[in-house]
């Protein structure tokens, strides 16, 4: 029973702030009326400023976090995946020494395929495994200009799979990397990393940089807290060209790499013994070429044409793949007309996958060719000075289905220094090759599931086979987002967003009723409490152990899960003094999932075992989704700029428990100390994951990748600019 008084109080406060805001604007007008002499007499004391990049973040109607080049350096990141750890709302976990699980707003498991990742405009998402291979996404980190992370559907402008977010890695123009740079680092799990870059200029105002990078890493920790011998190395060279010719801009980006990893995989051999394979060579090589051309016309329009070619050869123990992708896009930006600013674009992508040496993973169709046509249009309308409304839509056609992804968003400038925004979008995740056509076997053990309690005479060891489903539909998302961004004082800013996501047709593992080659029907008796009925259940001829059947459950995928997810991300930036900057971020995430089948009362007799297993499967799937992401996460960063070019940076992280993976809540501390001599030689010493025992960051039951522990590590890095 709240009294009326508080409401009146609140209403009057609201009114008063409006009045104050109005009077502030008249103060601006006065300055323009002052004479030049008077203006030159005004005193303005010196003060620190919040980073410039924050400006563009503050005005966009989306949940954006920009990782600047300074952030990458001061967070001590040694890879692009590691640089993403600090972004609130993202789940970035190191599974083993060369595998990362990276996602935004949940879904950080084998179907972690709802994130679009681009480097200089080229997608690095693999349609074969429906994910990103982070071990080969690398660059001379000091030549990355920034990494833009957009949480939430970014489908329209960015493209396919941008369901939960977009990561845009932007490297510096060759114009900004002139001169030479070399670095050398080594440490506890970073055995050695060497980087070299030379930037120069050709006669006709064409700038270039060539670079080379090589590293060897390893040192993950097994369950007995011993170091693994799973070292891996990758060598890379690249070239970038930039030509600025008045109203025409041309860029060429190229990169080739070769490396060998020992990605630890869990497999079950012929004796059905679990083996963690850590010494099988996984050779990878590839490269890409990206070209872009932009022209500005006299009437204010501009056009951008971009094309790229990407090749990858990956010799994994499970399957060898040769992937080639060609892509061409055009984007036309029409000069603002009245209140409208229209951008439209179209593109075509051709990808080809050739597979060989299929063991553990087999794909029915080979080679696989995919075509993707896309088109989009966006109109940004300045309804008033303060109110901007954007309506857009993307259309994709993959020779079978057409997907439409519309979006509407608005941003409203509450004051000079604060913006409120909101958005509604529909995004779609088209199924990848593995979901439709791949069968994986002898890689996944089903944990003692409720399902196997159904039967009598079943061994503890149960394996799971996943077969693809060529009739899969795309997964859908309807997303509502809102946010508030403000500079509360010169040195204090807040960026907050909240979202509600309604997913439908999400993938789930379901019972498959198609027998596999060499499957044998076994007659199993159900336990008395489930009616004691006997139903056929497909059993791979693996024999028995101690008189019990070893079951191989044959599953397939189907669009059978609905889920509602909601959460928030908040980042506070504060610079208490000239030399000290602090950032605190917090994220909350929650998801409720349920299977899209009718729930039957399990205790009733007369239910067939197939129905029970369907229900239990669904519950299992929903449980996984709900318990796979940590609910809370927080990061606190402190950066201190000391005299004589010393820097001292500290970071503290908290990640809540991940129930499904059996990982407890954990804390971690990183620190970094750095000294620069004469603006050209920099030495830094970094310690990570301190004051905490070796721990698993994530375990994924279905990908077949063996998880290893992450322990505290140290790194010494030398950089030389000349």
């Amino acid at each position, binding site marked *: *029973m*709240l009294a009326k008084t*508080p409401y009146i109080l*609140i209403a009057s*406060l*609201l009114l*008063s*702030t*409006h009045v*104050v*805001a109005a009077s*502030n604007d008249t*103060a*601006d007008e006065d*300055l*323009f009326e*002052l*004479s*030049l*002499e008077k*203006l*030159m*007499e*005004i*005193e*303005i*004391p*010196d*003060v620190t*400023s919040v980073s*410039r990049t924050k*400006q*563009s973040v503050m*005005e966009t109607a989306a949940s954006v976090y920009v990782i600047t080049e300074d952030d990458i350096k001061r967070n001590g990141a040694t890879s692009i995946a590691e640089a993403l750890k600090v972004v609130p709302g993202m789940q970035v976990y190191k599974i083993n020494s060369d595998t990362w699980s990276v996602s935004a707003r949940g879904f950080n498991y084998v179907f972690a395929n709802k994130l679009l990742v681009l480097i200089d405009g080229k997608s690095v998402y693999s349609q074969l495994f429906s994910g990103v291979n982070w071990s080969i996404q690398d660059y001379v980190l000091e030549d990355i200009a920034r990494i833009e992370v957009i949480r939430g559907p970014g489908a329209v402008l960015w493209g396919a799979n941008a369901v939960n977010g977009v990561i845009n890695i932007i490297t510096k123009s060759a*114009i*900004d990397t002139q001169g030479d740079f070399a670095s050398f680092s080594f440490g506890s799990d970073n055995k050695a990393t060497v980087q070299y870059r030379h930037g120069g200029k050709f006669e006709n*105002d064409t700038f270039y940089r060539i670079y080379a990078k090589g590293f060897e890493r390893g040192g993950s920790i097994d369950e007995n807290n011993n170091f693994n011998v799973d070292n891996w190395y990758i060598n890379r060279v690249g070239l970038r060209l930039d030509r*600025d010719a*008045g*109203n*025409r*801009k041309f860029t060429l980006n190229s990169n080739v790499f070769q490396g060998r990893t020992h990605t630890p995989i869990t497999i079950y051999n012929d004796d059905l013994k679990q083996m963690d394979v850590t010494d099988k060579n996984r050779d990878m090589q590839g490269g890409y070429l990206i070209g872009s051309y*932009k022209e*500005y016309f*006299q009437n*204010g329009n*501009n056009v951008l044409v971009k094309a790229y070619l990407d090749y990858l050869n990956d010799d994994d123990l499970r399957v060898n793949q040769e992937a080639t992708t060609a892509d061409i896009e055009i984007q036309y930006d029409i000069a603002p007309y009245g209140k409208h600013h229209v951008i439209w674009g179209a593109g075509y992508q051709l990808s080809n996958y050739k597979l060989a040496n299929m063991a553990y993973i087999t794909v029915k169709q080979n080679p696989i060719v995919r075509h993707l046509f896309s088109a989009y249009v966006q109109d940004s309308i300045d309804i008033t000075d303060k109110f901007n409304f954007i309506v857009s839509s993307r259309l994709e056609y993959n020779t079978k289905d057409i997907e439409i992804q519309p979006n509407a968003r608005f941003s409203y400038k*509450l*004051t*000079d*220094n*604060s913006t409120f925004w909101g958005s509604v979008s529909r995004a779609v995740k088209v199924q990848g090759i593995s979901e439709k056509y791949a069968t994986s076997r002898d890689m996944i053990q089903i944990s003692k599931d409720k399902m196997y309690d159904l039967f009598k005479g079943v061994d503890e060891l149960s394996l799971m086979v996943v077969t693809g489903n060529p009739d899969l539909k795309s997964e859908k998302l309807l997303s509502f987002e809102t946010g508030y961004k*403000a*500079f*509360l*004082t*010169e040195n204090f800013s*807040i960026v907050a967003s909240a979202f509600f996501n309604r997913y439908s047709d999400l993938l789930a593992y379901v019972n498959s009723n198609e027998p596999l080659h060499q499957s044998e029907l076994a007659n199993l008796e159900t336990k008395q409490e489930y009616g004691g009925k006997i139903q056929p259940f497909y059993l791979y001829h693996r024999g028995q152990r101690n008189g019990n059947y070893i079951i191989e459950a044959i599953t397939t995928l189907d669009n059978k899960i609905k889920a509602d997810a909601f959460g928030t991300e908040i980042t506070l930036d504060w610079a208490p003094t000239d030399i000290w900057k602090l950032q605190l971020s917090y994220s909350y995430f929650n998801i409720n999932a349920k299977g899209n089948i009718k729930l039957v009362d399990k205790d009733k007799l007369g239910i067939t075992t197939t129905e029970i297993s369907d229900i239990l499967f669904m519950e299992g799937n929903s449980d996984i989704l709900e318990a796979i992401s940590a609910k809370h996460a927080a990061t606190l960063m402190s950066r201190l700029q000391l005299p004589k070019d010393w820097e001292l940076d500290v970071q503290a992280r908290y990640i809540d428990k991940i129930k499904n993976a059996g990982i407890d809540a954990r804390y971690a501390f990183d620190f970094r100390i750095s000294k620069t001599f004469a603006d050209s030689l920099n030495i830094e010493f970094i310690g990570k994951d301190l004051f905490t025992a070796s721990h698993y960051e994530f375990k994924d039951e279905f990908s077949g990748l063996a998880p290893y522990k992450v322990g505290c590590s140290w790194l010494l890095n030398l950089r030389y600019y000349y």
Partner: protein
Amino acid sequence: MKTSIIKQTILKVFCMFLLLFIIIKSFAASTNFAPKIQEAKVKAAMIYQIIKMINWPDKKTNLSICIIGEESYLGNELLKMNRKISEGRQLSIIRRSLDSPIERLCDAIVIQDESINHVKAILKKINYNPILSISDISDFAKQGGILELYKKGDQIKFLINEDIAKQTNLHMDSKLIKLAK
């Protein structure tokens, strides 16, 4: 009974957020926090006054001032000059990117901090054209820019590169030259 407790809690939480929102909003509205923004406001006002004392050959009705590059405090303040009349000429302030044909579209350009590596290239583009180049990047005038704004102690001063100004046929009022430096 249960539902009214839930309703009360929801109302309380809502009021708490509303209050928080108001506090944050009042902060943002009432504080004139920008020693950095204040600096940008003063610089923008100075640019406005300086332009009054400059004459372009053949320019009688409107002046187009291009802000090069992305968001900035100075840019945001300059946008407020849009549509003002300066000695009979209407000012039009617009953002342009580095690669647009500024030598044809602009009567004045404002180059911001982040384009510091591109200053030479930009000045070369507009060479000899009657375009007023303005910036607060240090040594801008030395590099060939016409109007440089700089901070001396706690006050803002400006520099005019008269040689370049003469080459471009821009006419500066003698009062302006006296106030410079």
